[in-house]
């Protein structure tokens, strides 16, 4: 689970940053509403899917993945006590919300330290 500050996440979520829980596609089953989802692909090859009724962005994945590999943690109904492990794409951070925790920060991806 990690916080992403990239511009695509910021815009898709219209929020300071997104928080994504990594999953294996096999772990995810839609109980209902899969047909109500619409996906959007950015030029950089990231995909997000949102509910066409309310606009909630629920899942995301990359070009190489046919199915979602991340669930947007904020959409969980079950109380979730996992903790984010790091921040990625901090180069895209908004000036109006500072990162004040001690988690590792990566300029871009987590395999690409500052």
């Amino acid at each position: 689970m990690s916080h992403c500050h990239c511009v695509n996440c910021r815009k898709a979520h219209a929020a300071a940053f997104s928080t994504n829980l990594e999953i294996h596609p096999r772990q995810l089953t839609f109980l209902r509403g899969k047909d109500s989802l619409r996906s959007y692909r950015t030029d950089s090859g990231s995909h997000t899917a949102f509910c066409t009724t309310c606009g909630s962005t629920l899942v995301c994945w990359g070009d190489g993945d046919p199915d979602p590999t991340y669930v947007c943690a904020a959409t969980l109904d079950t109380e979730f006590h996992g903790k984010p492990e790091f921040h990625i794409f901090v180069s895209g951070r908004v000036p109006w919300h500072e990162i004040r925790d001690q988690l590792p920060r990566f300029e871009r991806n987590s395999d690409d330290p500052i």
Partner: protein
Amino acid sequence: MNASEKTLEGSCLCQKVRYRITGKVGPLTHCHCTHCRKTHGAAFASYLDVPRENLTFVSGEKDLVTYQAESGTKRGFCPDCGAVITCWGDDESKVIEIAAGTLDTPLGKIEAHHIWVRSRVPWYEIRDGFSQHPEGSQS
């Protein structure tokens, strides 16, 4: 700084919806309510108070889809990329809220506060110095 006065431009992820804000805006409200969390799919939403007369849509205004939450609060989002742009309670209100994450012009540092902190997610602690209200800003 309590408010920003420069012209601010913003857009959704796919750029279908574009807007411009002139004049005084602010403050910034970080809302941790369940509806904001869900609509944005983010730990919290950040909305900038904007007088309606200071907001101009450059494109896409007619395309925005409105969803009304149980509380009566309405939010407008782009049908193509899902980005939430606007939030308002009362259609007659002179102020509308703009999702700050959609700004293209850097907003800079701005006075902010946190509301509905009692429904905050357990995995994100608020560590900035801004005031925290258990429910709305009057609480």
